């Protein structure tokens, strides 16, 4: 009965569909969406409100600021870049809805900077980025799964994977703390699983591993129990591989307990400004080890950081300058080069091809080689390890960035000989 009805209905709908097709399909597909001779529209969906938003909600503002700077200096190939920002509250359902609005209503040319593993995965599949050929530039996740080019042929990531980071930390531990007791605090999800895989490859045996549920770091007393556990196990070195709030909670409580092992902070939770804002006294942080692929945001002698600071002051109302601002501007900076490199006859396909072809040579603040190629869509491929000074800033050891590079697979961790290309004049690659 229902089947018969449905068949009838589908015949009817086919007729209607054909009719409406004739009406709508007449004006031929002229240009790519989001593109005119003088403008290009990009879209970002990111948590602007909700529990995951603090910190990350500074990224779109930083991107906009850099794009405005480029626009004020002529745009890219004569086109001015606009950025449409949507708030997804870190909920995958909303992220898909917002991505659809960006793609179908705002008709953006490409997505940029989507944040969160689950959201990225949902958008890529449901919004059919693959079949529609919509580029997703510099997604904000270090989950190694996005390196799978077959599954995500239009997505590019900038951050090195969590697995790479764990391998680099593993190498450091092996060289400096062989035979010592090591402890690990990690988030009990894909972020942590990626890390555990990396540490396994580096053959690190932890004396104690403390998992925490994402979000539980806000529960009163939770971080205190981490420290009591660590004190009981008495390791020499503690690796904190969590988000900012968890890292800050761990360090804050360690301070309260006068507990001071050798700390190693993962890059995700190691932003000094965020930590300082969360009441971790900089002095307490002094001597801890940290990782980053970009120069320290406190390093005003770095030409990129200096330029980003100026842009932030002029175009971003001087919002407090930190890793989030650097991350946002770096993505924008790379996007500008990608668009430039795709030439005046810009297409979505052309943009993806341009990054695959020239991406590895794009100028950017990052101190590690970019891995973009026709076989890889992973950007930064390593880290430098440094020490936090008494002001809480992460500084390279001996004043020189020692950069390690590796992959998300079984490859070795090696010292990088990469020399960062000089910054284009005035920070304008357009």
């Amino acid at each position, binding site marked *: 009965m229902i089947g018969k009805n449905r068949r009838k209905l589908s015949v009817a709908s086919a007729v209607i569909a054909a009719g409406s097709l004739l009406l709508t399909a007449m004006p031929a597909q002229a240009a790519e969406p989001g593109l005119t001779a003088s403008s290009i529209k990009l879209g970002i969906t990111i948590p602007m409100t909700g529990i995951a938003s603090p910190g990350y*909600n500074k990224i779109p503002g930083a991107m906009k600021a850099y794009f405005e700077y480029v626009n004020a200096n002529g745009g890219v190939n004569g086109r001015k870049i606009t950025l449409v920002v949507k708030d997804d509250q870190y909920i995958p359902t909303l992220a898909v809805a917002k991505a659809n609005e960006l793609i179908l209503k705002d008709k953006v040319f490409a997505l940029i900077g989507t944040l969160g593993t689950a959201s990225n995965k949902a958008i890529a599949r449901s919004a059919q980025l693959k079949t529609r050929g919509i580029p997703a530039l510099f997604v904000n996740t270090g989950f190694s799964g996005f390196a799978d080019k077959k599954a995500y042929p239009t997505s590019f990531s900038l951050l090195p994977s969590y697995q790479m980071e764990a391998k680099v930390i593993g190498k450091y531990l092996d060289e400096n703390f062989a035979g010592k007791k090591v402890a690990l605090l990690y988030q009990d999800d894909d972020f942590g699983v990626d890390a555990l895989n990396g540490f396994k490859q580096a053959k690190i045996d932890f004396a104690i591993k403390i998992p925490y549920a994402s979000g539980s770091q806000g529960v009163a007393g939770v971080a205190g129990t981490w420290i009591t556990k660590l004190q009981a196990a008495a390791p020499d070195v503690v690796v904190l591989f969590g988000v900012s709030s968890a890292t*800050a909670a761990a360090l804050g409580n360690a301070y*309260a307990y006068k507990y001071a092992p050798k700390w190693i902070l993962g890059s995700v939770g190691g932003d000094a400004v965020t930590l300082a804002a969360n009441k971790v006294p900089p002095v307490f942080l002094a001597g801890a080890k940290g990782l980053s692929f970009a120069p320290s945001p406190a390093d005003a002698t770095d030409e990129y950081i200096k330029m980003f600071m100026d842009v932030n002051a002029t175009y971003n109302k001087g919002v407090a300058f930190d890793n989030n601002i650097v991350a946002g501007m770096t993505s924008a900076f790379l996007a500008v080069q990608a668009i430039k490199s795709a030439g005046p006859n810009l297409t979505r396909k052309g943009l993806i091809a341009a990054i695959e072809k020239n991406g590895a040579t794009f100028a950017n603040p990052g101190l590690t080689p970019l891995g973009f190629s026709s076989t890889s869509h992973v950007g930064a491929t390593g880290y430098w390890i440094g020490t936090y000074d008494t002001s809480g800033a992460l500084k390279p050891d001996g004043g020189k960035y020692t950069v390690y590079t590796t992959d998300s697979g079984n490859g070795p961790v090696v010292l990088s000989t990469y020399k960062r290309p000089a910054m284009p004049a005035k920070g304008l690659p357009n």
Partner: protein
Amino acid sequence: MFQILNTFLIGITSGSIYALMAISMVLVWRSTRVVNFAQAGMALLSTYFGYEVVNRFDSYWLALPVAMISGAVVAAFIELVFMRVLLKHSNSGPIASIAPIIATLGLLGLIKAFIGFFWGNQDVNIESPLSTVGFSIGTQTLSLSPMKLLILIAVSMLLLVLTFVFQKTNIGLALRASAYAPEISRLAGIKVDLVRTFGWALAGAAGGAAGMLQTANGNGALSPDSLEFSLLLAFGFIAAVIGGLDSLLGAVFGALLLGLVLAFVLTYVGGSLVFITAFVLLLVVLIVRPAGLISQKAGRRA
């Protein structure tokens, strides 16, 4: 051994923060029979007022009473202009069981949006007024700092004062009477509406204190989407339900139990289990005692 002591201390301090939240939920429940989900929002708003004071006058000790007073004023205002109308409009039919709860959810959203309009969605910070470094015994450090001691003292004092007000004063008697039997109380000459507003104001003040203390004890960061506050809401309510919504003592007892169980599970079982533990604890308690640990006799329930 020392680990057990510290785990115990962690449980007691986090429990006392839930207790402040649970107490304010119980106060509202007892005075108006409403489960107030906006409580965390009200606490957040008064903490923002406190933040403004800290910002301008650089004094936490001034900010704390200001937060409590503004909490009381906001709560009284909400009860006066909003809850009163609401309860009159939807006091019968199936909506009566859900309308107040849902309305307070709406309030929570309004308050958050309001805060977002004025202060933005990014973190602001409140410095802790006392040291957060624990006291030492020999080489060991206790999970007890001057700040945590302040919290414990503040909660105990608040509880003592509230118990006194409730049990020994006329207004306390009026509060209890208006909740159980509003009609009879009215006939007995009690200004039921006024008494209810007073109950809300008390709750608002307790919430303001909870917000200020929790923020100073936690990482000091404050935002409309603060994780701490959404968890304070959930865990405070769970604690109140565990204790039995009708009893102030139950709220404190439930909160301390929740704090202790969570601390021991976290230390000795596993860090990933915190959320599900709260659910299981609640379920176990309610299966044994469907109206919470310290429940009134069924006949007395309104």
